[in-house]
């Protein structure tokens, strides 16, 4: 896996810790996500990358489920990969 690269969250495999770089969305959505703690700069772990099952992340001990469309809109940088 190329690290230090911007990739779409959709392509990140389970168990990877990533840093959120950018959300490609309208102002309203961005702010809503920000209120839930999903802000550029924040780190989270991908618990399940969506196959099979939903796209689930762990944000500071809090589970969040994302639609596939949502995961596409998020640009992240993998920080480490624990196998």
């Amino acid at each position, binding site marked *: 896996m190329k690290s230090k690269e911007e990739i779409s969250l959709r392509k990140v495999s389970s168990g990877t810790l990533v840093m959120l770089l950018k959300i490609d*969305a*309208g*102002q*309203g*959505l*961005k*702010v*809503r*996500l*920000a*209120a*839930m*703690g*999903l*802000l*550029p*700069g*924040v780190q989270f772990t991908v*618990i*399940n990358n969506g*196959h*099979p*099952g*939903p796209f*689930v992340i*762990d*944000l*500071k*001990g*809090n*589970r*969040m*489920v*994302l*639609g596939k*469309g*949502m995961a596409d*809109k998020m640009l992240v940088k993998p920080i480490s990969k624990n196998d």
Partner: protein
Amino acid sequence: MTEKIKNITIALAGNPNSGKTTVFNSLTGMRQHVGNYPGVTVEKKEGLCHHKDFVLNIVDLPGTYSLTAYSAEEIVARNFIVEEKPDVVVDVIDSANIERNLYLAVQLMEMEAPIVLAFNMSDVAKNKGLIFDIEMLSSLFGLPIVQTIGNKDQGINELLEATVKTAQDKQRCSNLRIKYGKEIEDELEKLQQQLQTEKDLLKKFNSRWIAVKLLEQDEEILKQVKDTKVLDAAQDSINHLREIFGEEPEIIIADRRYGFISGACQEAVKNTIETRHNRSDMIDAVVTHRVFGLPIFVALMYIVFDLTFRIGKWPMGWLEGLFGFLSRYISGFWPTGQESLIKSLIVDGILGGVGGVVIFLPNILLLFMAIAVLEGTGYMARAAFVTDRIMHKIGLHGKSFIPMLIGFGCTVPAIMACRILENRRNRITTILVLPLFSCGARITIYALFIPAFFALKWRGAVMLLIYFIGIVLAVIAAKILRLTLLRGETVPFVMELPPYRMPTFKAILIHMWERGWLYLKKAGTVILVISVILWFAGNFPRSAVEQEEEDISQKQILEYSITGRLSGFLEPAFKPLGFDKRIVTALIGAMAAKEVFVAQMGITYAISEHEDVSVLREKLRADYTPLQAFCIMLFCLISAPCVATVAVTRAETGRIGWAIFQWAGLTALAYVVTLVVYQLGMYLS
């Protein structure tokens, strides 16, 4: 303390899933009152609580993550704080999820509201290995903090104590201000200077808060600004900040708030173990599975409905018996032969109408009990996710699936269940198309016509076809509404997955009771009025001749009445659909409730109550073709939702306009669809 405040108003704020409702129930017990905030469809719950010499009026604010102007809930919450000026705002915090929950607290602090923090879920936090230095956190935020366990009533007394103390305190607001960094602070200061002229706004809010909101481009505040110079200055500041940060100021501000919270937590919160809710993850792997998720959901829903109707059968029977007894008892006051109008009004009009609604109460209570369990355990969040893939295609949220399923039982609770949808457009769209999901009452109509006109082997298929047409029309209508009247970003799916929890018995009971009461009150009052009106229309005016005669038949009365005349008048309009005057008469009756259709048909054919329904079927077969029968069913499926539906739609959307739109729109749709089907059918045969 020279004078004692006896009455205190408390607002309860908090994130969704923080246990806010549980704390509210714990504080108020059953002394609750549910209503709506004025002008919007956001639910408002209030309750009283006595503590020592004080009477606390507790208002449950909507559960929100933030206080922006992006959703009705958030606007309602902050307006309440500004306009009603509660003596204390108690912010319920999920302490197992501390940082995100403190985000709301920080925004409340910026509003200079007097706050007490309830660190709820402290048992969960402890199990997660989180240890709080409460004293330090309390001084960092400048606020009293009380640890609670909502579902065990722990810490509630201490919470009340701290609340009462804060209410009496003169200096009760935190004086902490988040520093947004030099660039933003400079702009804030500039804007605060400019704001001196906005006297009205300054009366309500503090100037720093207004300035922050201007940078956040808060629509509600922008609307209230009078001086265009202020707006220009705000725009300049925003452009300037955007240039520096390469990002919307709003996001930077959110980031700084989180930064402050992180800092505070690093100092005062220790995480001793690194375990996560693994059991929840394991359950999720199954129930949200791409393949198994949907079947599991459908199976669960099936169990819910099956139980609802299976168990509900008994109390329904009792209620039916009760109403039967009442009407016999009341009829007993009048000797036979001397049938009085008052008797008919009470027995046929009032008892018939209201009874028809009350009978469904057990079903509704059971249904909402099941929903309360699914919600309380956390499964609802998963169900929403599982169905989101399908619902998303028609521009709705996954959660819309639940009201739709309920709609097959009865449209009224289905519309009430739409409260689980946060997004207003989603909610209204779902409410508007719900009558297209063929409800239980309409089965009575199908049960009359299908056996009369179709061979046994086709009956199931015809029934299925009717249901299917309803669903397809609902999907198309929802899609069209989302593209036109109720257009808006289909919010990409992001949701919190709360860990699985055991709901408390009390919470379920309270939820059930609330819904039941709302149903009785809102639907009941309107139904009563309309039932009386329809009774009147079906009985008046009466011809002089008839009044002299001893045995005037129901049929004659109906023909002479307003309903009878109206159907005569409307008949030509319904000719192209294959309907005659009798059908139109029955359709008018069905406006009260779909079951009435069958009763009205019986009257127009002068079938007495003792005769079997097969007699009516026989007569129908003589007068109509299968095509006509199908068209009648089709029209009943689509057209004019019943009175209870109209009443609930009005109540739940907050506007009579939506209810009228729904009624008229569906009736027009029914007309067009039936017209096409009938004419096509005639042409083909």
